């Protein structure tokens, strides 16, 4: 049960005189409260700064400078791109499913054409997954690129976007892998050499096989072994078997590839059912995070200031040192000529004095 109060609200809004504006929000200032007005003005100007900067986009893209970019739309682009890709994959997967079903039915037709299609579709889907994965990973690098411009909010949006897309991709890849494994299973099941193969399988004792691709890997190894076997023994040169084994190999390879993507994505998605999935917990943590990041920023600033100071000091000391060396070298030469006179000591002291004057020069240049 709910109640819509929009109409009431709008009628209230109409009854109040608003100096609604010509072009921008500046006219909306509440003139009755001077304090408020200036507050607002400040904020408005700030907002303008952001909007204006968006006009410099092209300049930024040309690499002239890293300007303030309106980030959310950019991420929105990536997001819609990925969502589009995912939708495409989903379509392909359903088509593939249809083909598989058709192939599963017993028939006398030659399935070579279909097999080729399946091959092709598998390839397309796998590469699409790869693309999606790369795009998702790319979000991070974009984030890094615009590190200086991104506000904490933008960072948060990016992270959330990534999590959501990762979860969606995972769901879809799960579906796809299920489909593929079912098909492999079908291909294997009518394998008349199955009992023989069983033994081969037992020999591979993969201790950490608790993962998704283990079956496909085994299938791959098996098929390649079988293929080799066939090449060696000329007697069995059944083309059909060979083709099917190749097929299994290919599909299994695809599954393994996608499984790797799946595992990589695993680190990005939220563990559902844990505290990390709680809204209020995240809200609190954001506040803490923001505070911490602020502190770190300040620290970083201090460090940076300090490091520039350090550099300056280093430079100055270097300059003084070299000057001192030069000054020291000169009198030595004169030493040879006026060996017995006490003059040199007098020579050195005035020579050292101008040094600080020279030292000042680089600082002013800086």
């Amino acid at each position: 049960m709910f109640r819509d109060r929009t109409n009431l609200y709008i009628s209230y809004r109409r009854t109040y005189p608003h100096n609604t504006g010509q072009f921008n929000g500046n006219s909306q200032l509440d003139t009755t409260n001077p304090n408020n007005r200036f507050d607002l003005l400040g904020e408005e100007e700030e907002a303008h700064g952001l909007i204006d900067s968006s006009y410099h986009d092209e300049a930024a893209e040309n690499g002239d400078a890293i300007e303030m970019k309106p980030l959310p739309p950019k991420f929105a682009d990536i997001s819609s791109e990925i969502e589009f890709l995912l939708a495409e994959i989903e379509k392909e997967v359903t088509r593939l499913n249809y083909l598989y079903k058709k192939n599963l039915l017993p028939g006398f037709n030659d399935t070579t054409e279909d097999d080729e299609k399946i091959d092709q579709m598998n390839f397309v889907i796998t590469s699409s997954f790869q693309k999606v994965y790369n795009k998702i990973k790319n979000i991070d690098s974009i984030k890094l690129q615009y590190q200086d411009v991104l506000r904490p909010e933008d960072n948060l949006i990016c992270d959330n976007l990534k999590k959501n897309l990762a979860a969606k991709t995972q769901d879809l890849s799960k579906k796809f892998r299920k489909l593929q494994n079912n098909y492999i299973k079908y291909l294997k099941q009518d394998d008349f050499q199955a009992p023989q193969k069983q033994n081969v399988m037992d020999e591979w004792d993969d201790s950490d096989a608790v993962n998704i691709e283990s079956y496909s890997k085994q299938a791959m190894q098996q098929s390649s072994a079988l293929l080799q076997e066939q090449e060696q023994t000329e007697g069995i040169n059944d083309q059909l078997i060979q083709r099917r084994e190749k097929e299994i190999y290919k599909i299994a390879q695809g599954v393994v590839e996608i499984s790797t993507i799946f595992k990589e994505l695993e680190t990005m998605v939220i563990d559902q059912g844990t505290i990390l999935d709680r809204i209020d917990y995240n809200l609190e943590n954001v506040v803490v995070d923001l505070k911490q990041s602020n502190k770190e920023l300040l620290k970083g600033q201090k460090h940076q200031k300090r490091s520039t100071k350090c550099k300056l000091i280093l430079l100055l000391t270097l300059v003084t040192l070299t000057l001192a060396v030069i000054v020291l070298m000169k009198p030595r030469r004169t030493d040879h000529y006026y060996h017995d006179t006490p003059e040199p000591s007098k020579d050195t002291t005035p020579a050292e004095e101008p040094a600080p004057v020279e030292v000042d020069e680089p600082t002013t240049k800086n």
Partner: protein
Amino acid sequence: MDLVKVGQSYVDKIVTDTGIKVLLLDDITSSIISLVSTQSELLNHQVYLIDKLENENRDTIKQLDCVCFLSVSEKTINLLVEELGAPKYKSYKLYFNNVVPNSFLERLAERDDLEMVDKVMELFLDYDILNKNLFSFKQLNIFNSIDAWNQQQFLLTLASLKSLCFSLQTNPIIRYESNSRMCSKLASDLSYEFGQSSKIMEKFPVNDIPPVLLILDRKNDPITPLLNPWTYQSMVHELLGIFNNTVDLTGTPSDLPPDLIKLVLNPSQDPFYAQSLYLNFGDLSDSIKTYVNEYKEKTVKHNSNELTDLNDMKHFLESFPEFKKLSNNISKHMGLITELDRKINENHLWQVSELEQSIAVNDNHNADLQELEKLLTSQEFKIANNLKVKLVCLYAIRYELHPNNQLPKMLSILLQQGVPEFEINTVNRMLKYSGSTKRLNDDSESSIFNQATNNLLQGFKQSHENDNIYMQHIPRLERVISKLVKNKLPTAHYPTLINDFLKKQRPVSDLNGARLQDIIIFFVGGVTYEEARIINNFNLVNKSTRIVIGGTTVHNTNSFMTQVLELE
């Protein structure tokens, strides 16, 4: 009347609009929404930024639409007026969690010069949904003095209870316990408010049998919150504390990995928990054992080369993502149960609980007294102070009118044992709050000292666990409901209020004998998880009746004793 579904439908309403958006919450609504939705669910609806209205350091993001889910209070309206004066987002959709006074809307409209607001809606979700039939208002200091409301808390309770009834689309007949001024005040004010809300209520479906809201006072059954419960959810709350469906295990001696320190216990997101939250400790152990075995079976197969079995393989591939979830879930519950077990042994709860039950159920003064004295002074079992005080409280309530009452002696034993005086005060406060003269004296049958045996009430078809000596006591609520459902609660003790609108809508006929369908039970002074369990059992057995229960808060023994102690 499934509260979880109600809550989820509201969340859906908030986030359905397409496009990337910001969700603004406030302190109150953020905890409400956390109970019915999750971060990933919101992400799925393209809510990529969640923030609080109170957060002043929010940046301007003019490209994004903003959806607000806010509570109705002076504070949030002020903040919102400020926000609309200097908008940070592209547009605003406002969802309030209760009825918004027109004056608030006017203030917002006055400030909304830029016409930023597209939508204003009232969703009635001003309460916490804990289980599918348990709600809470999370209020602790509702008392001004004994049996008198703190005015501010009263208004909050009134508003929340109103939102609850609206969200369930009910215009209920209100019944309350006649001996409680708090109940009667709440009931009459609520009834008046309902009479004024005809505009909202006229859209509600009209049932043949009108729904009933029963308002009870905790003081009429102080026994239930004092006893140590032995079912999963209740035990976790009693021994570890559940706050907003999360448990914090910080400071427990067992070294848990960091991701198992703060746990979420939400039956709608955790199938194992949903299955076992009402199980008693013994059944729970069995249940977790089979759960672990299931997991073992699944993983061991995939660990070895048994992978060759294609059917297994297929199953594994399909359920692989579930595996990580499953192992997380198992370690969560294992951690909890281990912790419970540790607490039970540490506090000698087996012994304590046996005595508790005996005091609560049997009328055997001398034996109970002996046993009580033994436990209080025992060197063998070192029992914590609060447990000792609790036992004496039970004794005081149970044998208040017994001619041979030895309460002064017990109190002096407590002092001797080094229990601080202010803690001992709880016993006297308890008697003041809920002594025999304070409790509703309806009939002897409805006494709070009920035993499970010969207590096969109509409506509770399953027999109670008579053989379980730790669960002999049956909360008073069970009797009250079994009468209420048959509409046989005496009006002398449970007056009936029918609001003006309901009277106008239809002639309320004589309902005697009719079986009630929709019932809302509300405990002033706090409900317990045990009572929620009873309601759940009742709903399971009686398909035609749907009951939800809630209270100003959900008590465990400690929170109840603190509440009583703080009474002036």
